[in-house]
């Protein structure tokens, strides 16, 4: 058994009893033979203090629940290897969104922006009896887009989203906007581009690529945003 103590500094805030948030020092015995990921260790910490609050579900990086700020960088606890972490491990809620409690943020604004891009297929043509056809090459255009898990790591690492969360769609929303623009089955490309042609909604992106740096699914919102901008230029000439 390779057990050892891991040290943490964790953002704590319970509006029911705390006047203000604070950083709490916490430590826990971990067994490196069993505990691989940060979520495994959070589970141990919570077993010792059931008031520690965070979201989690699938523990395999597909549901997007356990996004948090880990040693200054956004990521998923369930995909973060503990052996690579510098101690004390500093855990904070995702930046830029209101904190509800401990590591749990209010994601209303994030989802509002996602919903604002009409994230659904728009095709008003009569429905064929069978599937709509799409070539493998056309389908490949959706790779790197449809895999988004809406964890918000990207948008909450983006300064433009911090300053204008109500006006700038943010990298996650824009990646999803492009997912439908790129879909050959979607008939609303022009309306989608019109909607984004706005000094804030799209053009607050200054390509600093924080989003690419933190995406736990290795997606590239900056590239998708670039493609939307390119399409706007192309249709203007």
């Amino acid at each position: 058994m390779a057990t050892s103590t891991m040290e943490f500094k964790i953002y704590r805030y319970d509006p029911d009893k705390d006047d203000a948030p604070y950083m709490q020092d916490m430590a826990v015995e971990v067994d490196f033979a069993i505990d691989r990921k940060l979520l495994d260790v959070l589970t141990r910490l919570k077993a010792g203090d059931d008031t520690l609050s965070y979201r989690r579900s699938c523990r395999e990086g597909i549901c997007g629940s356990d996004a948090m700020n880990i040693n200054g960088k956004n990521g998923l606890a369930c995909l973060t290897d503990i052996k690579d972490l510098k101690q004390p491990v500093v855990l904070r809620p995702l930046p830029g969104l209101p904190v509800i409690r401990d590591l749990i943020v209010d994601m209303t604004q994030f989802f509002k922006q996602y919903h604002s891009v009409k994230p659904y297929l728009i095709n008003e043509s009569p429905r064929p009896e069978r599937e709509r056809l799409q070539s493998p090459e056309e389908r490949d255009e959706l790779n790197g887009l449809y895999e988004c898990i809406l964890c918000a790591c990207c948008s909450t690492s983006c300064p433009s989203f911090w300053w204008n969360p109500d006006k700038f769609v943010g990298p996650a929303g824009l990646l999803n906007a492009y997912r439908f623009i790129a879909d050959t089955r979607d008939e609303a490309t022009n309306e989608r581009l019109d909607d984004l042609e706005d000094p804030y909604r799209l053009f607050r992106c200054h390509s600093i690529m924080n989003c690419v740096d933190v995406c736990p699914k290795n997606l590239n919102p900056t590239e998708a945003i670039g493609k939307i901008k390119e399409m706007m230029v192309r249709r203007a000439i």
Partner: protein
Amino acid sequence: MSKQSIPVRKFDAVIVGAGGSGLRAAIQLSEGGLKTAVLSKVFPTRSHTVAAQGGVSASLGNSEEDHWHWHMYDTVKGSDWLGDQDAIEYMCRKAPEVVVELEHFGMPFDRTDEGKIYQRPFGGHMSNFGEKPVRRACAAADRTGHAMLHALYQRNVRANTQFFVEWMALDLIRDESGQVLGVIALEMETGEVVAFHAKATIFATGGAGRIYYSSTNAFINTGDGLGMAARAGIPLEDMEFWQFHPTGVAGAGVLITEGVRGEGGILRNSDNERFMERYAPNAKDLASRDVVSRAMVTEINEGRGCGPNKDFVLLDITHLDPATIMKRLPGIREISIQFAGIDPIQAPIPVVPTCHYQMGGIPTNFKGQVVSADGAPVKGFYAAGEVACASVHGANRLGTNSLLDLLVFGKSSGDSVIEDVASGDVTHRDLPADFAEFTLARLNRLNTQTGGSNVNETRLDLQRTMQKHCGVFRFKDMLAEGVDKIVEIEKAVARTEIKDKSQVWNTARVEALELDNLIEVAKATLVSAEARKESRGAHVRDDAPDTPENPNGRDDVNWHKHTLWQREGSSLSYKPVTMTPLTVETIALKTRSY
């Protein structure tokens, strides 16, 4: 305390759960114009449908000839003849329609060269009534569940469905006549308890895979719908049947899709032998899941396991073209690197059978209506997906039939609600005066408990007991012992104590309430399993061996029937299997082999 003590909100329908079946039902209701509330413990796209990988079955015949009747045959055979043939026919016939519909909703399926939906082979899916493997699993790489759940959520965004996100349903409301009138639920952000008073209530709460220590399931899969139903006097059907997926990552439990074997992956033991050739000469690695899981455990028990402790076998895809792996199985590669520390292009993946799916559940008919023991619908109550038992999976589910189940029965339950509301069959009946009393007493007990048991330790006790006493192979004495242990654990569950008393996002409280549901499921499972003195599908016991009279240990004379477990007195009753399909001939009982 009276009904004035908690706020009441009125809806035509309330759906509990926003995974695949809940979202599919919600589309029907929202587009059908019913005032609907969808409650979910998590944001909809975080529901566990998101983790499904390999595909959804439908006899589209996009790559080779296929027929819904063959699909039906495979499903009946896969169920070891415990599935109800009316529901199975309904599901398999509806499959092409609901899958095409999903494509129209925007689901990003992979494509064939002709631009049709890509299909791959999967365990137990055969052409021409069991002859040879057929490509029936419609896939979006190895992220089919993720692509499906997001497409369904997106369609609900379009339909303006009203979601109550991060609300946990606590109890079902029934009146004296037994009609279901809605649920009582807890808003996690505020701690507020609210009644959702509805004409119709659909349970789409998913499974309870977390009753086992080693599970592919998410933390949230705690059988909340089953617990609520059991506490409200609804029986649970066929709870002894749990699927152990052959390929969970050893140690981590994370799922590796059967689609890996569909794409050509091979299971090997420590002698590097493709051992499935001995157990299933025809289907080999693509035999049914119960068959493959037992073969793996037998290999391990007989000393041919791999690794320092000889406690896993290997799933080998190193012979596949890396381009195929990158295109068809990219998620599996990610998972293997993350959770097994190996790249499957270069080295085989260590795997063990891991608890994956509950075949049993709340008894329903193929319309998604919950039925009582005599087959009559429970007014106002519907269920779909893993929480329900239609029963299409019987004693063993075929891979990809779970995603199909949630589409077909999510839709049919929604249609039934629309019909029953329109006909006036279900209306807003008055809430009983004391409807909230039971739930508020539970919450109050939890808030005031001192010197009680620890939630985390009690849950671990429960999970380890299930793992040890009710696993892939079952033993008469172990089952009996397991029942005694669960009864002891039940006492600890009744006096759990939490330190966190906050009203705001109290996860300790949620976990304690989830444990109240897990214990009902665990008890139903062990009691039902202990009583069933035969081997069938996923339920295989040492005292029901393979004999000429009872091939594979299956005893059709005495045990070809569904179990019904009632919480009250933990009592059992049985009901016959429906052998008459809707339009075709009965698929007669036969010995099952692959």
